[in-house]
């Protein structure tokens, strides 16, 4: 049981800084997910915590001890890699036992631990197999087992589900969540998949070009995204982000005027802003402030995703309607949105207003 603290963590490669000072305190037993598009520095962040990359500036502390200069093996961490990184010539048992043997643990103790981990991960009967004789999901479990048997202070996951097919990914996602809750081990989890991030995380760190744009619980990020980037990244289908202009009655956007919950206080009238509206908050209505011409329908059964063009200047909006909603292509559809569901961002900085 341990805490993990990142303080002003920076990383540069040859003068080029890729992580610009990330701070975050992971509480004991918490699962924090670092999410962002590829190249945002999330893996670099994780690798600095693991000790596989040197830290340019700032500190990594585990349980209050600064570990910047500590070898990976002495940090008391375990890592699950994207491609599993299992030793191809060793059996599943040996893969899990290797780290323990390196630490000089007694043979009996190793056997007990590996068998317990195998039972938790439903790997019984597969322990003698080599990695190539295992399916993707089983390999993934062996990689998890290798982390579990160590009973480390911190688990690090580097996109552990990316190599699995979609169905297995959903299944393993649930298993990881359950396992982490059961073991209560402090964890840092990196992924580019926002659904995975939302479902797993106690708290999320959304990374954008080396900066932690927002750190918070998943629903807080969903409800009050701090930047336009977070707003567009979290949620599926992605939030509509269109240019608008503040006026006295609300905000002028996509050829309509939408009232705002808090009149004023968000900037003087006439100011151009970025308006964010989630597809699930845009509802078809008898007459709405917004109107689109249907261009494409995605009928998912439970929902119908409406892609439409609003106004004359090629603004496109996406709305999530009930499954039975079936307008013809080219039909006009009126959309309404509740004032509290309007997000406003600064046009230049992307910061929430």
């Amino acid at each position, binding site marked *: 049981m341990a805490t993990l603290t990142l303080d002003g963590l920076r990383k540069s490669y040859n003068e080029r800084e890729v992580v610009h000072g990330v701070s975050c305190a992971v509480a004991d037993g918490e699962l924090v997910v670092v999410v962002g598009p590829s190249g945002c520095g999330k893996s670099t962040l994780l690798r600095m915590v*693991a000790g596989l990359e040197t830290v340019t500036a700032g500190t990594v502390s585990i349980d209050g001890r600064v570990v910047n200069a500590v070898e990976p093996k002495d940090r008391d961490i375990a890592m699950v890699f994207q491609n599993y990184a299992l030793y191809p*010539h060793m059996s599943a048992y040996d893969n899990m036992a290797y780290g323990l043997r390196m630490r000089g643990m007694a043979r009996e103790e190793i056997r007990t631990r590996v068998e317990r981990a195998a039972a938790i991960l439903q790997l019984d009967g597969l322990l003698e197999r080599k990695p190539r004789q295992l399916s993707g999901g089983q390999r993934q479990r062996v990689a998890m087992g290798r982390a579990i048997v160590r009973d480390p202070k911190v688990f690090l996951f580097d996109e552990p589900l990316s190599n699995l097919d979609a169905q297995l990914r959903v299944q393993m996602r649930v298993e990881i969540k359950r396992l982490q809750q059961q073991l209560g081990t402090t964890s840092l989890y990196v992924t580019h998949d926002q659904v995975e991030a939302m479902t797993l995380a106690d708290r999320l760190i959304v990374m954008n070009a080396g900066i932690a744009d927002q750190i918070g619980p998943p629903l807080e990020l969903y409800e009050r995204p701090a930047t336009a980037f977070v707003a567009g990244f979290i949620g599926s289908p992605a939030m509509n982000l269109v240019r608008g202009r503040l006026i006295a009655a609300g905000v002028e956007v996509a050829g309509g005027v939408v009232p705002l919950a808090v009149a004023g206080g968000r900037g003087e009238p006439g100011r151009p802003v970025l308006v964010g509206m989630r597809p699930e908050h845009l509802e078809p209505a008898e007459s709405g402030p917004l109107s689109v011409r249907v261009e494409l329908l995605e009928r998912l059964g439970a929902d119908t995703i409406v892609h439409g063009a609003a106004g004359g200047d090629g603004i496109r909006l996406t709305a999530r309607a009930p499954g039975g909603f079936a307008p013809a292509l080219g039909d006009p559809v009126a959309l309404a949105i509740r004032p509290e569901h309007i997000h406003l961002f600064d046009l230049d900085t992307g910061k929430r207003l």
Partner: protein
Amino acid sequence: MVSAPRSAIVPHAILIAGLVIVLFPIFVAFVAASHTLPEILNAPMSLVPGPHFLSNTIEALYAGTVKTSGTPVARMLFNSAVMALAIAIGKIAISLPSAYAVVFFRFPLRRTCFWAIFVTLMLPVEVRIMPTYRIAADLSLINSYAGLTLPLIASATATLLFRQFFLTIPDELVEAAKIDGAGPWRFLVDTVVPLSKTNIAALFVILFIYGWNQYLWPLLVTDTPAMTTIVIGMRQMIGNGDAETEWQLIMATAILAILPPTAVVVLMQRWFVKGLVEAEK
């Protein structure tokens, strides 16, 4: 019996033709080794094996011929075996750690080291033979096993092959080992060497045959009968007119000379096949 499908006939014909071309000289050598000298010299030589194969072989093995000052072939085989084994094992033992260093460690002048090794590829033994001989002579390595093998062990081919293979080992495996607490030495012994098994087997075969077939260097660096290798020995057996060339013994020696490399190939081939099957997936 169902007759073989038409498509199998042509490949088989080609294979059999190839086999005959390869095996016929060996068969002739075998036949010649089983006759007495007058029978061989009485043209045309019979192509039916005679009854003297065993006696000729034993004579060659333990007594040698007049031409080789009576050095028994057993001694030559031993010399060749020592030389081929030392070259194969020595090269692997040197090139595996050097490739490991070049691939997995960051140290000053790493690139320079790699290129220095690489450049020696362009200087095979034949090119540097005079300076090499001089050094061997100055170090009094003439007529010693060290002199026979050391200069041939120093070469870059095996290092390059191992380097290429090591580069295919994913970085994540190295990192997993770091986190597991395996230091560089343990990673080499527990992971890199086991993964290189098939490469080592392949190199061993190639290098053993390379060592076994050496002619020029042993010719220079040895001149006593006791240090003669089998390849040099066979050349010496063929007379220059002073005495009769004992063809039956030469042929028996040739057959004996083929056996060790063949054995190495056959034994190691199992590893190849195993390696190929394991590499699947």
